[in-house]
C-alpha cells in the first residue's frame, strides 16, 4: 500500500502545498520515510465493511439564521493587511502585480 518517498515527491508536495522548502529537502525526505514506515502498521487492520468516521460528533447539520454581523465585517476589513476605500486590496491574480 505504501510508497517510497523520493526527493522529487517532496518537491512536488511542496509545490502543491505552496511552501518553499529550499535546502531542507533531504531532511524532509528522511522524516517522511520514518513517519510513513510507522504508518505501515495500519496494513494489519481489517477494515472491511467499516464506515469511515469523519468527525468526533454524531450531530448532523446545525442550521442558523443567516445574519450578517456588520461590526465583525467592518473589523475584518480593518484588520486586513491592505485596504483601499473600504475594499480589500490583494495582489493581481491574473497577471504579475506590476
Amino acid at each position, binding site marked *: 500500500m505504501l510508497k517510497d518517498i523520493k526527493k522529487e515527491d*517532496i518537491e512536488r508536495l511542496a509545490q502543491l502545498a*505552496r*511552501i518553499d522548502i529550499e535546502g531542507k529537502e533531504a531532511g*524532509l525526505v528522511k522524516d517522511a520515510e520514518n513517519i510513513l514506515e*510507522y504508518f505501515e502498521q*495500519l496494513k*494489519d487492520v481489517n477494515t472491511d465493511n467499516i464506515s469511515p*468516521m469523519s468527525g468526533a460528533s454524531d450531530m448532523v447539520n446545525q442550521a442558523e439564521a443567516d445574519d450578517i454581523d456588520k461590526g465583525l465585517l467592518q*473589523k475584518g476589513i480593518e*484588520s486586513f493587511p491592505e485596504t483601499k476605500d473600504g475594499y480589500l486590496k490583494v495582489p493581481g491574480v491574473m497577471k504579475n502585480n506590476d
Partner: protein
Amino acid sequence: MDKNILSIKDVRDGIVSGDFSAEEVTSEFLKEAKQKNQEINAYISIREEEAIASAKEIDEKIKAGEDAGPLCGAPLAIKDNLLIEDEVCTSASKLLKDYVSAYDATVIKKLRTAGAVFLGKANMDEFAMGSSTENSAFGPTKNPVDTERVPGGSSGGSAAAVAGRMALGAIGSDTGGSIRLPASFCGVVGMKPTYGRVSRFGLMAMASSLDQIGPFGKTVADAEEIYSVIKGADKHDATSRNAGESQLNLGDPSSITIGIPDEYFSGTGLDDETSKAMQETVDFFRSAGMKIKKINLPYSKYALSAYYIIIFAEISTNLARFDGIRYSRGSNNGSLFDIYMKTRGAGFGEEVKRRMLLGTFVLSAGYYDAYYAKAQKVRQLIKRDFIEAFNQVDVILSPTSPTVPFKFGEKSDDPVQMYLSDIFTVPVNLAGLPAISIPVKGRVDKLPIGFQLIGKHWHDSDLFSLGKYYEGQ
C-alpha cells in the same frame, strides 16, 4: 494574603468579603509572572495594563455591590491561539507575529463575563503542533519543576504558568493531548472536555475534528470552576451543544467501576517509575472500595498512526488560509504563486511544514484510500473499542504519558519518538471523549507524573467528581 494557599474559590471569597482586592491579586501574580518569565518563558506576551484595568473594574463592581462573577479576580493565562479582540495573537508562529485579532473568542467572552483576569498569552508549540513546546517561534518554555526539562506540549506555556504560580489557572487547547500531557509534565490538573462541550469560535484551528478547548488548574476544583464557565452551545460553533451533566455516586464507592486497559501497559514504552505510580493510583481507588476491572481496547495500538494521518490531512487544509495575503503580508513582488511560496516558506517552522507536506500527501489522488480513508475507518474501530468498554465500566484509568518529562533536545530531532509521547492521549480525541490528567500524589521532590481518567461521552462531571475524591476534597 498568602498566595500559596489561594484557589479560585479563595480568591473569589477574599475579594467579595473585602479581605483583599482583585487588583492586589492581579499585581501579585503579574509580579511573579514578569520575574519568572525571563527564565521559564511561559508567556509570549504579558498584558500588564489590561490585566490591572480589568481587576480594577471588578473591584468597582464589588464596591457597587454587584455580582462580579464566579471567577471574579482569578488571574489566568490564555494560550496564544485564542483570540482576544484588538490584541496580537501569534499561535507561536513567525508568520502571525503581528496579527491582531478582530474579535473575542467565545471562551474569552465567557471568561470575561465571569470576572476572570487575563494576565497574558501563553507560549505553545507553533499552531499547537508538538508535544514539548520546543516548536515555538518565540523560544521554548521551561518546566518550572526542573528547568532542564520540557513542560510538555503543545499548551506548555499554560501548564508552566500554573505550575510556576505565574497564573492561578489557564486555558489550553487539546487536539491529541495538548492539555493533558503538559499538565502531567508540570504537575498540574488539565482537562479536555467532550468534543462539542466548549465552543471553539475564535480558536485557531489545527485539526477541526479533534480540537477542543479546556482548563488548567492547580487543583481539580479549580479546573472544574473554569470548565463550568466556558462550556455550552454557541451559535458560532456548529459542533457545540448543551448536554446534561452526569453524577457518579461517590457516597457508595462500590457502585463505581474503573477500567484498566491491558493494552496501555505493554509495548507502549511505559517507564518503570510511571508504571509504579499507576499501580499506587489503582490501589488508592481499590482500597476506597471501587471496583477495578481489566478491560481491552484492542485497536489502541493503531491509534497513533490513525491520529497522525488524520491531523496531517486536516492541518494541510486548515492552514491553507495562511497564504501571505490575508493574515500577514510579506512582499507583494513576484507572482501570486511566488508570494505564497515565500511567505509560507519563511513563516512556518519545520514541524508545521513537515505536517503540511505529509497532509498533502495522504490526501493526494492514489494515496487517499490507503492513508486518509483507512485512518478514518480505524478511527471508527477505536471509538467502538471505547463504547464497548464503557458498557462494563464507568471510567477508564491510564497513565497520561509513558514517561516522566524528558530533557530539551532529547526527542526534537526524531518526529516519531516525539509523536509517541501522545500514545495514551490521542485515542481519547479520536473518540471525542472527555479526559482529565491529575498529578499522582506524594511526589514531592520527584518529577511529576499524571494519571488520566477517561469518561463516557458528555460525562465530563464524572471526571471532576472522581478527581476531587482522589485529591481528598
